[in-house]
C-alpha cells in the first residue's frame, strides 16, 4: 500500500526523460558522444553526397541556369516537360526496361541456378563462368556485345548465316525494332550470374524435409519445380525483381556506350536523356535536366512503394 502511494506521489516523467538516465546507466548502451562519433561521419557523407545533391536538384529545377546566372522560372520547366516528345519516348523505353527486363534477368538466373542445383556436368566451372560477367565493367560488356552484334562478323549473324537463316541477319543495334531488345539481352547476360547466385543460395536453404517428402510421393522433377521449389522461392524472386526494377529505372552506362540512345531514340532512357540535356545540348542550363531528374526521382520512389504494396500483401520483402 505504501509503495502504491509513493508511486502515486511521483509525477509521471516523460518517456524521453526516463529513457535518458536508463541509457546513461545501462552499460550496454553507448553514450551520446560515442554515438555521435560513429554516426556523424556517415550522416555527413550521406547529407553531403546524397541528400544535398537530391534537394539541390529539385531546387534547381525551378530555375534556368545559364553560366553563372540563375533565373527563377517557377514550374516552366515542368510544363515544358509535359510537351517534350523525346522525354515521353525515354519514359516508355525506361518502363519497358524496368518492367520487362527484370523478368528476363530473374528467369535466367533461376534457370542457371536450377541447372547447378540439378548437378550439370562441370557445375563448378559453370558457376564461375556464369558469374564472371557480373565482375566485368559495363564498358567491357558493351564493347564485347557490340562485337557480337556486328553485322558483318558478329557471332550472332555468323551463326544465323551458318544455319541458313540469312534473312534474319540484321544490324541488331542499328534497327529501331531490335535495338532495345538487344541492349536488354546484354544487360540480362551481365546480371544473370548475380541472380543465379542468390537463387542458388535460396534453393539450398529450402527445407529439405519438404523436398524429401515430395520425392517419397514420387513427385517428378518438373512437378517438384513448379509446385514446390518456385513457390517457396517466391519471396527471393520478388526481391530480385524489385532490385532489378530499381536498377533499370536508372539504366545509363550500357545504353550510352552501345547506342547513345539511338537509332531514332529507340533506346533512349530517362537517364541518357538527362545527360544529353545537361551536357550535349549546347547549353549550360541545368534547370531543365534537373526537372527531368526530379520527376524521375518521384516516379522511381512511387513505383517502388507501389511494388512493395502489391507484393507486401503476400510476401515480406527484404533488401
Amino acid at each position, binding site marked *: 500500500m505504501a509503495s502504491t502511494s509513493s508511486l502515486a506521489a511521483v509525477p509521471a516523467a516523460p518517456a524521453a526523460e526516463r529513457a535518458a538516465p536508463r541509457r546513461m546507466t545501462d552499460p550496454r548502451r553507448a553514450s551520446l558522444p560515442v554515438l555521435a562519433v560513429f554516426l556523424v561521419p556517415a550522416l555527413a557523407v550521406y547529407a553531403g553526397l546524397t541528400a544535398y545533391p537530391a534537394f539541390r536538384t529539385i531546387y534547381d529545377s525551378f530555375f534556368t541556369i545559364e553560366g553563372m546566372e540563375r533565373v527563377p522560372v517557377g514550374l516552366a520547366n515542368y510544363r515544358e516537360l509535359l510537351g517534350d516528345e523525346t522525354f515521353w519516348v525515354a519514359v516508355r523505353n525506361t518502363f519497358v526496361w524496368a518492367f520487362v527486363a527484370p523478368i528476363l534477368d530473374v528467369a535466367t538466373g533461376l534457370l542457371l541456378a536450377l541447372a547447378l542445383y540439378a548437378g550439370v556436368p562441370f557445375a563448378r566451372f559453370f558457376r564461375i563462368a556464369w558469374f564472371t560477367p557480373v565482375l566485368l565493367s559495363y564498358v567491357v560488356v558493351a564493347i564485347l556485345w557490340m562485337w557480337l552484334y*556486328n553485322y558483318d562478323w558478329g557471332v550472332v549473324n555468323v551463326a544465323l548465316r551458318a544455319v541458313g537463316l540469312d534473312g534474319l541477319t540484321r*544490324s541488331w543495334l542499328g*534497327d529501331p525494332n531490335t535495338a532495345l531488345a538487344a541492349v536488354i539481352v546484354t544487360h540480362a547476360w551481365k546480371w544473370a550470374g548475380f541472380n543465379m547466385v542468390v537463387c542458388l543460395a535460396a534453393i539450398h536453404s529450402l527445407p529439405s524435409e519438404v523436398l524429401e517428402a515430395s520425392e517419397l510421393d514420387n513427385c517428378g522433377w518438373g512437378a517438384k519445380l513448379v509446385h514446390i521449389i518456385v513457390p517457396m522461392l517466391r519471396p527471393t524472386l520478388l526481391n530480385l525483381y524489385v532490385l532489378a526494377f530499381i536498377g533499370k529505372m536508372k539504366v545509363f552506362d550500357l545504353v550510352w556506350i552501345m547506342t547513345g540512345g*539511338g537509332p*531514332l531514340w529507340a533506346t533512349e532512357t530517362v537517364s541518357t536523356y538527362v545527360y544529353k540535356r545537361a551536357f550535349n545540348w*549546347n547549353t549550360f542550363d541545368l534547370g531543365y535536366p534537373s526537372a527531368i531528374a526530379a520527376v524521375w526521382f518521384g516516379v522511381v520512389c512511387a513505383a517502388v512503394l507501389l511494388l512493395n504494396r502489391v507484393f507486401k500483401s503476400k510476401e515480406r520483402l527484404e533488401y
Partner: protein
Amino acid sequence: MTKRLAGAVLGLAFAAAGSAGAAEPSQITMWSNWPDEPAKRDWVSARVKDFEAANKQCTVKLSFIPKADIYTQAKSAVRTGQAPDIFYMEPDQPEFLAGGFLEPLDGHIDLAGLEDWAKPAWTSKGKVYGLPVEAYTVELYYNKDAVKKVGVDVPASFQLSQAGFLDLVKKGAAAGITPVSQGVGDRPFPGGLLLFESLLRKLGREDYGRLLSGELSYKDPRVASVMTWFRELVDAGAYPKSFATLKLGESHYYFYQKPGALTFPDPSWFTGRAFAPPESGGMPADFPLGIMQFPAMDEGACPTCKTLAVAGSFVMYSRGKNKDCAGALLKSMATVDNGTKWMEQVSLQTGLKSDPARIKSPREAYFGELNARNTNVSYFFGTPLFHYRAKCAETFTQVMNNAFPAGLISVGEAADKMDAACRKSS
C-alpha cells in the same frame, strides 16, 4: 652589434626569399585533344616545349584528353572556377562563349597570324575568342583502281553528275564492293556528309545557309529532290550494312584496308588516321587514293561549292589565374612558322597563316591533289552541327546522320522531323 647583425641576416633572408618567390615560374594547365593522333599531338607538344624554353617564367602542365571528355569535364570545371587556363574547343560548342567563360584573345595574340576566313568561326561582338589551329574542307576520297574496275571513269573535272554517282553506287553494289564507306557508331555527323554536301551544291550558299538557319523548309522541292536521290543511293546499297555501328576509325580501315570501298566522304582531317603507319590502321603506302568533287546536282545552283570549317582550336579560360602566361603561349603558337609546321606535319589545313612555299612534306602529291580540288571553289562556312543547336542538333544526329542514310525512314518522315525540330516558324 649582435642585434644589428641578426637584423641584417634576417633582412638578407627575406630578400632572398622574395627574389626566390619572384623567380618561381607560374604553371599553367592546358588540355588538348588528339591523344590518339600522333602528328597533332607532336605538334602541340613541340609548341609547348618551344614556349617553355623561351619563357622560363612559365611552365605548362599539358594533358591530352579525348574530345568528348574535355567537353564534359570543362562544362563542370568552368562553373567552379577550376577549368584549365587553356583548353581545346571547337566552334560548335558556343555555350562556353555565351556563358562568358572564354577570354577574348585580341589583347593576347597577334591576330594577323590568323587566316581571315578562320576568324569568323571564333568572332563574337568584334572579338576573337579561339585560336583556330585545325581547319578542314569536306572531301570525297576514292579508290582510283576500284572505281575504274567497276567501269566508271572519273571525268577531268573530277566531278560526277547526279546520275553518274548513282551509277557508280549501283555498279559498286553489283560488283560486291561497298560504294560508300561510312559509319555513325561514334560520331554525330558522318552520315550527313554526302547528303548535305549535295544539298549545298543544289541550293547554293545562300539558300543552304537558310536551310541550316531554319528559314528554309526541308519540304522545299529542291531539298526534296536531293533527298529523294539520296534515298535512291541508300536503297541501291550505298552504305555498309554495319553503318549504324561502324565507328569513324573503323570506316577508315573499311575504306583502305578491309573489305574496301569505292568512296569515303570525310573531312580533310582524313590524314590524321590515314597517314598513320598501316600496321596502326593507316592507309597502305601503295593505296590508289584519289580525291573527287562531290557530285554536281541537276540544276544545282553551285556545283563548285564546298564546306570549309574550323575544328580543333585553343581557348583561354576567362577566370584563369595565369592569363599572362596563357596568353603568351597562345601568342607563341599563332605564327606563320607554326602554321607551316602544322601543314607539314599533320598534312591538314590550318586557321593559322602558313607559307605554302616552305612546306616540305613526303605527302606532296596528296597536298597537290587536295589543292587542285580546292581551286576555284566557293566555300560555305561550317558543317550542319556548327549551325544547329540543342533539339535541332540532336534531331540531325538521330535522323540525318543515322536513320535516313540507314534507310530506316522515308524522305517525308525525315523532312517532317527536321522541320519540326529546326524550322523557325514551326
